[in-house]
């Protein structure tokens, strides 16, 4: 296969960046998109040019490292796929592809196609957990969880934290990411004690990071490599409203800690 690539090249965060055109000849349709970039990079190095920086690790669609915008679509034209699992057989011989990094205010570019997604980690650090100390748990079968609940929690828990949702959102919102975690933990009995504290803390941190607000464009769910449903956003919104209306922060008004 022959492909014409316009790849975003940017030396570092301070550089303005630009598209550079490359021609790739003799690519195989069985190559993954990232293997095609490997192939290009080998040629660039041999020609004495700098290879294109892009993020990747597992190449099995689960680590969440990779992700680029291809012809305006985060993770490319195939639904439910990371770019490491996107194969060239889905493109046509002679295609022209524009390849860009995630575009989002909260994800500054580090180099070429690599962006800084540490904002997502900080949201998790604000409250994306159940506080359970090692050694303190009861027997695993002590709390029964209906299969339907557990399956639904798993649907939400499948999020790989790649950031495609925020990159695709016209508002730059990270709601699908945040809602998936809120729903995963909020659905399970173990997650109940911290349920409303969690949603408050995570949403607060999300706003601080400069992500936009959700206005139901549904672009996030369309590009999500794990096909996470936007129904979880509805669920998170409900929890968020509940957190403020029916679960006031300091019920007794005495405890400062309860306000957090």
């Amino acid at each position, binding site marked *: 296969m022959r492909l014409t690539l316009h790849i975003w090249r940017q030396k570092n965060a301070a550089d303005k960046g630009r598209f550079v055109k490359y021609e790739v000849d003799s690519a195989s349709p069985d190559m993954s998109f990232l293997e095609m970039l490997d192939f290009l990079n080998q040629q660039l190095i041999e020609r004495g040019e700098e290879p294109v920086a892009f993020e990747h690790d597992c*190449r099995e669609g*689960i680590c969440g490292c990779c992700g680029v915008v291809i012809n305006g679509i985060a993770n490319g034209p195939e639904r439910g796929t990371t770019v490491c699992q996107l194969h060239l057989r889905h493109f046509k011989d002679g295609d022209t592809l524009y390849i860009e990094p995630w575009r989002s205010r909260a994800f500054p570019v580090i180099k070429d196609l690599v962006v800084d997604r540490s904002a997502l980690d900080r949201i998790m650090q604000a409250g994306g957990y*159940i506080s359970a100390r*090692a050694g303190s748990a009861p027997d695993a079968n002590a709390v029964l969880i209906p299969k339907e609940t557990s399956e639904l929690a798993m649907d939400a828990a499948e999020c790989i934290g790649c950031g495609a949702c925020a990159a695709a959102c016209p508002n730059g919102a990270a709601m699908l990411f945040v809602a998936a975690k809120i729903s995963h933990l909020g659905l399970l009995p*173990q997650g109940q004690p911290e349920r409303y504290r969690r949603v408050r803390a995570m949403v607060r941190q999300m706003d601080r990071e400069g992500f936009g607000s959700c206005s139901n464009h549904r672009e996030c769910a369309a590009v999500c490599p794990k096909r996470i449903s936007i129904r979880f956003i509805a669920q998170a919104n409900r929890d968020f409203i509940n957190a403020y209306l029916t679960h006031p922060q300091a019920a007794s008004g005495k405890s400062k800690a309860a306000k957090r």
Partner: protein
Amino acid sequence: MRLDPKIPAGPLEEKWTCYRNTVKLVSPANKRLFTVIVVGTGLAGASAAAALGELGYNVLAFCYQDSARRAHSIAAQGGINAAKNYQNDGDSTFRLFRETLAGGDFRSREANVYRLAEISGGIIDHCVAQGVPFAREYSGYLANRSFGGSLVSRTFYCRGQTGQQLLLGAYSALCRQVGLGRVRILPRTEMLDLVVAGGRARGIIARDLVTGRIEALTADAVLLATGGYANVFFLSTNGKGSNATAVWRAYKRGAGFANPCFTQVHPTCIPRSGDYQSKLTLMSESLRNDGRVWVPKRKGDGRDPAGIPETERDYFLERMYPRYGNLAPRDIASRAVKRMCDDGYGAGPGGRGVYLDLTGAIARLGEDVIRERYGNLFEMYKRITGEDPWRAPMRIYPAPHYTMGGLWVDYGLQSTIPGLFVLGEANFSDHGANRLGASALMQGLADGYFIIPYTLGEYFAGATLDKVSPSDRPFVEVQKEVQEQVARLLAVKGKRTVDTFHRELGAVLWEHCGMSRNAAGLRAAVEKIRALRGEFWEDVRVPGSAPDFNQELEKAGRVADYLELAELMCRDALEREESCGCHFREEFQTTDGEPVRDDGRFCHVAVWEYAGEDREPVRHTEPLAFETVQPAERSYK
């Protein structure tokens, strides 16, 4: 090199309890005075960092990825073992212990393996408490599946993404500690060397992968949870970034390297499709629960598999191993697959593949059940191959997957360097010569959540640690060496890319130190590796500069280490004149091709000591004593 495994006295069942009862403790107020460096944030590293943070230690956690949630534990698919006996099918701590020991072909320590089995149940309890959404039955109770090498159903799972869910559980526990200020995570940072001062591990030299800045960091103890080295083969199921640099540098600073030749080749991976291939993808062993492995009975039968009638198929695992059938352990299944393909029965391009067929299971259980159990694996297979596994059987072939070898540790997970602890796949301890499926997740989390919190306290309580600073001589010297190595890589300015060397190295190892090994091949491999290493330092081309985000420079450093490690693997394989577990020496087999173990000469751990540049490493041994289970011939027939 002194190899004292420090196994506690007493009966096997009571060793760990006795250890915990008598272990020295550090008072809660004093814990925050100790700084612990944890390198790697996979299951072992993240769980250790979180658990130590919970105890009040001051923890620095390093990972080379952009986030602590991405380590390759995340790709583990099938499940995690625990001796819960929730199925009432005869499981017990003792049975899990015995199966793991026998699965490792009696090349691991009884006391370690027993402790692992003993802890296994608590891991499941803890993960459920964290919110890991394990598969459940309609009643709400936890579900189990079977795995290779076992006659009971003890594997807990989250669809085909168990590793992901367990890692996200550990990562969220880690996140909580970051929020509480007890753990600091340094992502995009790679450990490039270990600093030993006053005879103890006291810090690391790390490179910031964004700015290229090389810095010395001090600590009171260093924990390596950096995973395995299967990527030495270039094509493996590991993540592209997984590497051996941390353990290799620790080895060169005095840590013993145990059983480097014990590398697991996993039977069920998607076969390679071309020369551009960058990695191999595993199809979970759990598929062998419901799938049947077969080849056509006629050599070179090129027919569409659906058109080959039952009578013309050879279900060779069921034929060769009637008792375990398709659930024969990995080493045994891999060799059987290789043998069928070598003999000309293989299917697909180049005859390098056998069928993994779930047609019968789909007909018996229905598409919905199979989709629920393996749906994501079917999708993954379809995406990679372009073939639909709902219509035709999958094709699979073995690929390097896991390394049982690693840095030697004692019962407390401490290496031969005081203050250097090694956890998870990076150590050698629990799997002997072959790891059973669903045991890696168990070991990583056992080490991190439940073992190191005790054994690290024992070390701190018994040691007098002087203050150290990055301006101390050992730190300055090692930092300088690291900077020189980086400069040397950039200065070669040769013609060949890093990847070409790595691919060539992988091909040599796969050929001579893969599923089948012999003395002549291993000797030839040592020569080839040396020559390739020489050429690397003469002709490698690393573009860009040091103070920059430079992925080629990262790769070059890792490949330079692989070129040394590969030689040690071959030497170790050469010295071990027996066939055991994954290590199959052609000279030591029965007439029908079964491995022949030599307990008289090799019932030990081989531990290699670095002796300096261009000097032969020294081979030491730790004898393995079996008091509870006598080594028997390992039979799955």
